[in-house]
């Protein structure tokens, strides 16, 4: 056994990037051959002109352009403006893939998260032999970060995928009710779907059963509570997290975390100061 062979499937093909650091005002022209362009302004202001459309982008804003063959995008940037532009081609439809919807322009919620990814993209591109797969994965992460901003959505619009809307409804229901006795049939009844259809829809979108989703949510909460309420009995924490039967809770916890609740608590022992940090600790 010598390792893992991965077939790489890229839904987008990165075809180049431009990074303009803060400097004097100027113009940049990018020629596009039937591809898309993602632009993010880190500092200052930028005016992007593509054909008849003009976009004025202040710092923290991003925009997408789709261009036919031979079209150019011209950037007029002010002094001190710093921006990134990523070019990519869209590959033909891939099966079983998730959709990501995003606006043509928008403000980014966490510009530093996006800047961090874009900088890595530029660094990879500058390597002597950049890895196409690294670039592709970074590009998608950039788009996800942008889609998470208002106006975009990772849950593609119901018109695009009704199943995704159903799965999100299930997630929301589980998040609100996991402390109570809850099973997949209850959720189906509440959401007015047949249990079988709901199950198939959820599995298609999330890859796990509704039951597993409830367990995962509960166990995640139990892990946090085991560390936050150190003096509380495991059976009480089980009850808080929606498990009436403590033995059943132990079995599910062990299956998910690969250790017993008490073992999990004991290896995560320490002062109260560490607790916050430990919430991010988990065990393989």
């Amino acid at each position, binding site marked *: 056994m010598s390792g893992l062979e991965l*077939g790489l499937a890229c839904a987008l093909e990165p075809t180049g990037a431009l990074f303009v650091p803060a400097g004097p005002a100027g113009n940049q022209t990018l020629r596009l051959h039937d591809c898309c362009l993602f632009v993010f302004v880190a500092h200052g202001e930028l005016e992007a002109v593509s054909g008849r459309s003009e976009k004025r982008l202040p710092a923290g804003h991003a925009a997408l352009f789709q261009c036919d063959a031979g079209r150019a995008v011209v950037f007029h940037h002010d002094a001190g403006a710093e921006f990134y532009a990523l070019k990519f081609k869209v590959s033909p439809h891939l099966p079983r893939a998730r959709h990501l919807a995003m606006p043509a322009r928008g403000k980014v919620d966490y510009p530093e998260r996006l800047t961090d990814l874009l900088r890595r993209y530029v660094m990879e591109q500058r390597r002597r032999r950049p890895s196409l797969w690294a670039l592709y994965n970074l590009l998608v992460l950039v788009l996800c970060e942008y889609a998470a901003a208002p106006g975009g959505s990772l849950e593609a619009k119901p018109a695009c995928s009704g199943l995704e809307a159903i799965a999100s409804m299930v997630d929301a229901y589980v998040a609100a009710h996991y402390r109570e006795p809850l099973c997949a049939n209850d959720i189906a009844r509440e959401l007015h779907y047949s249990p079988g259809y709901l199950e198939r829809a959820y599995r298609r979108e999330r890859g796990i059963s509704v039951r597993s989703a409830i367990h995962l949510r509960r166990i995640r909460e139990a892990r946090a509570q085991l560390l936050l309420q150190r003096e509380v009995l495991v059976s009480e924490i089980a009850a808080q997290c929606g498990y009436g039967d403590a033995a059943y809770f132990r079995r599910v916890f062990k299956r998910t975390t690969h250790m017993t609740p008490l073992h999990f608590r*004991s290896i995560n022992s320490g002062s109260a100061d560490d607790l916050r940090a430990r919430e*991010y600790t988990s065990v393989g």
Partner: protein
Amino acid sequence: MASSSDGQFRFTLTNGIEALNGGLFVSPGSGTHPTRVIDSHELIFVAQGSLDLFEEKENLHAEANQTLVLFPGKRHGGRLPYAPDLNFYWVHFRIHEGLGAHATLHVPRVADVRDPEFLTEMFCRFISDQESGILDPVSAAHLVGLMLVEAGSAERDWTSRTAARARAQQQAPLAHEIQAYIDRNFKEPITTSSIARDFRRSADYLERVFRRHRDMSILMAVHLRRITAARVMLRTEGRKNINEIAFACGYGDPGYFRRMFKRLTGLSPRKFRSLYSRTHINAH
């Protein structure tokens, strides 16, 4: 396909990976990895110490800055008790076949990581987003994609530690010596001319040799080494202020450090810290 008829862009995104969950394991100082069979792949990145596992009949050993891949459906477990200083990141994922692969990525069983700090930061991002509930499946899948690139690409890069390093050493012993000198002395106030003095060669000659093999100036390599050290300290040493970190990384002038950090990472040291210090663990 992308469509922008209603002002929205829609992309279909996948890399054939389904990310499950991830975490950071901190050695409890005793105990052994449980023997178990899991139904997914697992990527382990040893950040500190060393890890000894078996899978079926194969013995596996990974040291700090190495990754390890485990396979689904195979029995694995600890071969030796956990080393007291062991820290490792882990992530479970599934690989979906039938996506129409564009290329293959080979991830060795045990691999040297070309940029351990980069991989650590990707894991931090994964874990912290997972814990705060904002990790969407698309981002998760592509973060794992990036991690696998890091685990799979070490051999092709000049900076890899074993095979590639030996090869580089043969091809460019002097460039390699300069890098090793920088790695040892970056905390001191070194410059290209001080390095040239210590090597008893002319600065121009060293510069030419180095640039031919690394595509960057000696000064830039010094900065990169210092900024990498600063990234580690910003992530892990929450008590140090930015000025102290600047001094500890060889910068006498904190203002200059801030400028260089911003130029090389795109973020101010403070923003970088707020982005990555959440998974910080200060126990054991």
